[in-house]
């Protein structure tokens, strides 16, 4: 088991090296993250804290914290390299992965996990000072909610990775993935709680599968959830994970069957 893990770790490390082949691009992407985070904080600070605006049960401080946490979940859960697989299917580069004596799913997960670890660690460089600076305006998580949030983070990572792979499989059936991917993530962006807390539109919306990408991990970090049991939400999330996994298996087995290996 340890050997398998070590092997996957090395594979993930290689893919990370490939992702970082252009270091300046990586640093610019981090700069973009810091800039967008600062813009978001200033914007919401001006609206929420300065004017004392309250949304439903969300106080200005809770709301500002929520947006900061959705930013963090976005960086950890939704930062991915798996979104390049659709294009590699179309370009034919995917063929080389099919020749490796290892099934694609563990390969993808190794790639994703190592990339996320690196991305998260590098994001901490600017997140820690910002959180420290804003701590008097934020609702910080308790130890208990941090552990529960960790479970939601893991669930979110798995759901997000499988959803990305499902949408990448469009490459098996179409010569263009961009439009379908864009449409999918616009819908996901609305349903994942990235722009507003989903419970503001009713508790039912919080149990959609995309909610586990941003809403639930962020909401748990905020502390007590009164409208639904977080453990029930976790249970539903695991159910979604199983369903999404079977959809992934179905779509990919059909996709691989129809794969023609075109491209250059």
């Amino acid at each position, binding site marked *: 088991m340890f050997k398998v893990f070590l092997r996957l770790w*090395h*594979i993930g490390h290689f893919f990370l090296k490939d992702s970082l082949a252009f270091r300046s691009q990586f640093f610019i992407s981090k700069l973009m993250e810091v800039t967008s985070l600062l813009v978001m904080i200033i914007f919401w600070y001006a609206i929420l804290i300065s004017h004392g605006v309250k949304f439903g049960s969300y106080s200005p401080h809770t709301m500002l914290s929520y947006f900061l946490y959705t930013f963090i979940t976005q960086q950890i859960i939704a930062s991915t390299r798996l979104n390049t697989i659709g294009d590699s299917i179309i370009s034919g580069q995917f063929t080389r992965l099919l020749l490796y*004596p290892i099934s694609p799913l563990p390969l993808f997960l190794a790639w994703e996990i190592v990339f996320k670890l690196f991305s998260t660690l590098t994001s901490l460089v600017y997140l820690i000072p910002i959180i420290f600076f804003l701590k008097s305006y934020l609702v910080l998580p308790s130890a208990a909610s941090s552990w529960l949030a960790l479970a939601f983070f893991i669930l979110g990572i798995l759901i997000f990775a499988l959803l990305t792979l499902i949408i990448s499989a469009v490459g098996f059936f179409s010569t263009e993935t961009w439009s379908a991917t864009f449409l999918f993530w616009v819908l996901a962006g609305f349903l994942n709680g990235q722009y507003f807390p989903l419970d503001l539109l009713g508790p039912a919306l919080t149990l959609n599968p995309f909610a586990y990408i941003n809403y639930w991990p962020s909401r748990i970090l905020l502390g007590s959830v009164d409208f639904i049991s977080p453990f029930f939400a976790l249970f539903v999330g695991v159910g979604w994970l199983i369903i999404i996994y079977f959809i992934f298996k179905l779509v990919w087995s059909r996709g691989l069957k129809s794969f023609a*290996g075109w491209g250059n």
Partner: protein
Amino acid sequence: MLMADDKTKPTIFLDKVSKSFITRQRPSGVKGLFSWGKKQVNQAVKGVSLTVSQGRIVGLIGPNGAGKTTLLKILTGIIHPDSGQVSVLGEIPHHRRPHFLQQIGFLMGNRNYLWWNLPAIDSYNLLKIIYQIPDDVFDQNLKLFSGFLDVGRYLYDKPIRELSLGERMRCQLLAVFLHLPKLVFLDEPTLGLDIIAQDKMRDFVKFYAARFKPTIVLTSHYLKDIEILAQQVVILNHGHILFNDSLSKLRSKVSTDKEIVFETILNDPGPVKTLIKKHKLSPYLQSINLPEITFIAPQPLASQLIQIITNNLPVSDIKISSIDIEVIIKRYFQNV
């Protein structure tokens, strides 16, 4: 279609294998936006049956679109056949079992197998982990193969994207053989290479075949690759196998013609043309590129032709050889 000397279990066994691709031909321009297009079924491989025994080098040849690459993709498990039975190394390739993939290597001459933005050594290290090659075997193979292919100078520093086509192809070839595959598929391995690089590739394949006794299936439009490397030739056209035997059998089936090249000390083609007209030799004439005059003639006529030319023209040298494989294949396609 078992070869006469096949006594062991075949490495490759295909029985009535077919594969078709569905495409849609849409009208061009704005009209195309509102049309699903006409469905077209392109039958790439049609009922192919083939057996290759262990340790053989098979040359798969045919014109563009004959189905060669599709057949290789079926054999490596990249694509699923529509019908028929496929067994490679005793496994069904498209099940893609790790044990099967561990034993094969596939070089696609028109596709980049290595990671574009990293030096070749990084891709080799990845392959080492993926194929679980022990450290000592990896070091030994890397040293041996990189020395043979003369790639040691640019393995460590230059990303693949900065290498020339020849350098890149040699690095790719090394990658394919690094885990010592038992069965190797080489699809156009000398595509776009200069003569020296082509020779290096062929020498390496010969060396590997002699040392490790793998089964190799090779496709190439450079028929010299087939002539030098292959023991068995399979001609494929429109998805069908037209011929499956040795190159010498193909030669004897197509023709017993000889190529005769006379080297003269003439500067003027006039006397040559007059002589050819007088003895009605034009059907056998291939070219007059003084000082060389080339004829292709059936074996019984060759001695008569030599006599006529040497008696009437100042000849300094004569070269007689079997006709070139390219001519053989061309003739084969003309006859079928």
